């Protein structure tokens, strides 16, 4: 349904996302994992046509029959919020503080051609569907009267309002408390028609998604079914990341990846991970291709 091929994002001379390709089938939940500077958020924003000024995308991305990349803003605007929609990290700033919740949910539907009474009725219905307690009261409330978790549910209701074919979530629970996060993740997994879920948290992605793409330095370095990638990682970065995210008992040293994540656009040539990789050799000065069916990896010295 969504197919992305050779997506590249650049700002001036720096290439921030390089030749990213993947596909999402209807009903599929795909995770996009990466740390700061990995290009995961830029990948999502380029699908939404929401890249910041001065940043451009090339390559192709199709949702059904429609092109998402390299088409005029007016065409994307029509799709955004209807065919695909997005939930952002920060629920505090994403809602208009002066508008009642119900009106904000209804607005996205009237914008895309629904009648006002119908939109209002559906908005109320949606607030119930994202399991907000007492939807009628929330409908009349202002954003500041809601907790962070409730606001993020409202954002989800807005994203789902026009029954999009694809839902993109960018760190939707990072700003929430862990006890709230769990319910939110379950809800997203349940209601998403098809999901692209962006996060830095391996455990979160494992609890929501079926398939995962691991990004580092603007490239997809490994992809495959979650269980396989997380139990038998092939790329050395994925391997290191998995090891680093397990907390060993007190008094023992935590496994680490050496060095720091370079700033965006300053990753090494060839394999982007080679300056931090314990296995790196001169072979890694060449760019490794993403190879493998199902479970793919881009590494010259993959783990077994």
């Amino acid at each position, binding site marked *: 349904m969504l197919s992305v091929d050779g997506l590249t994002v650049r700002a001036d001379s720096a290439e921030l996302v390089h030749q990213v390709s993947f596909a999402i089938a209807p009903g599929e939940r795909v995770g996009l994992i990466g740390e700061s500077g990995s290009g995961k958020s830029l990948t999502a924003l380029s699908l939404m046509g929401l890249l910041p000024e001065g940043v451009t995308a090339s390559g192709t991305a199709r949702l059904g029959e429609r092109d998402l990349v390299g088409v005029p803003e007016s065409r994307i605007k029509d799709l955004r919020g209807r065919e695909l929609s997005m939930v952002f990290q920060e629920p505090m700033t994403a809602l208009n503080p002066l508008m009642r919740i119900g009106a904000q949910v209804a607005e996205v539907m009237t914008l895309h051609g629904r009648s006002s009474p119908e939109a209002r009725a559906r908005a109320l219905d949606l607030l119930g569907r994202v399991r907000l307690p007492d939807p009628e009261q929330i409908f009349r409330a202002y954003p500041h009267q809601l907790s962070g978790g409730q606001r993020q549910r409202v954002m989800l209701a807005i994203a789902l309002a026009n029954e999009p074919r694809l839902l993109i979530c960018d760190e939707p629970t990072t700003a929430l408390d862990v006890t709230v996060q769990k319910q939110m993740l379950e809800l997203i997994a349940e209601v998403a028609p098809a999901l692209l879920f962006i996060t830095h948290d391996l455990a979160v992605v494992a609890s929501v998604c079926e398939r995962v793409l691991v990004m580092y330095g603007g490239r997809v370095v490994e992809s495959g079914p*979650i269980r396989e990638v997380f139990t038998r990682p092939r790329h050395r970065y994925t391997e290191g990341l998995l090891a680093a995210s397990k907390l060993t008992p007190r008094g023992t040293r935590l496994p680490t990846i050496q060095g720091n994540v370079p700033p965006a656009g300053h990753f090494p040539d060839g394999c982007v991970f080679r300056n931090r990789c314990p296995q790196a050799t001169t072979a890694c000065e060449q760019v490794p291709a993403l190879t493998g069916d199902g479970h793919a990896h881009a590494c010259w010295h993959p783990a077994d």
Partner: protein
Amino acid sequence: MPTHAGTPLIEARDLTRVYRRPRTSLTKPGAEVHALRDVSLTVHRGERYGIVGESGSGKSTLLRLLCGLDQPTGGSIRFDGQEIAGLPERRLRFLRENLQIVFQDPMSSLDPRMRVRDLVAEPLTALGLPVGDRVAGLLDAVGLPATAADRYPHQFSGGQRQRIAIARALAPRPKVLVADEPVSALDVSVRGQILNLLADLADELGLTLVFVSHDLSVVRHVCETVAVMSRGEIVETGPVDDVWAAPAHAYTRTLLQAVPTLEGLL
């Protein structure tokens, strides 16, 4: 596991902190918010003490009180036998020399207009202690090159900035290091480096560690003792392994179940 004989280093008794919301009516004063209710805790010399709680649990308020950055509405805090509650800043020098803080977000806790050299030396210059050539030594201790001293914070990655913050905190040779969510703003691949660094430094320098986090599993890796906070109160406290294995309070159980773990999911 070390035993903690002798006098406690930090002893808080019945700490209460009430904030008043800005007034919303002309006739009535603003509503009172009880950020902290009758909180007591004891941290011994050399102990690694964890405080766990979510937003609004009061852990940040407690931290500010322990660090002498805010005044309690009621209760007492003794640091090394001396009362600090109610003391004005000019009489808190003994606390500042002996207790330093590493903040959550190294992007915002380092003044963007200052060079690393001045940031690291600030606790020394502020307390009138000699700086000498300590900066290079401190940077080395946290794994940064001496050349870092002449740069500005924005030229470093998140992990490196947290190293700068740790070097700064260690400058006056404190007895206690308070770490407020020191790794929650960092990438997973560097989180381990910072936690290892903190553990090494605590071992080498014999530091007492007060470690605040929303993540009980991180606290379990770092600390021996934990206090679980919810709604301004400590609901459970004890050895972290006991709390982890058999949480007594319902809230602790909820917290433990809510955190997704890879081990549990795969």
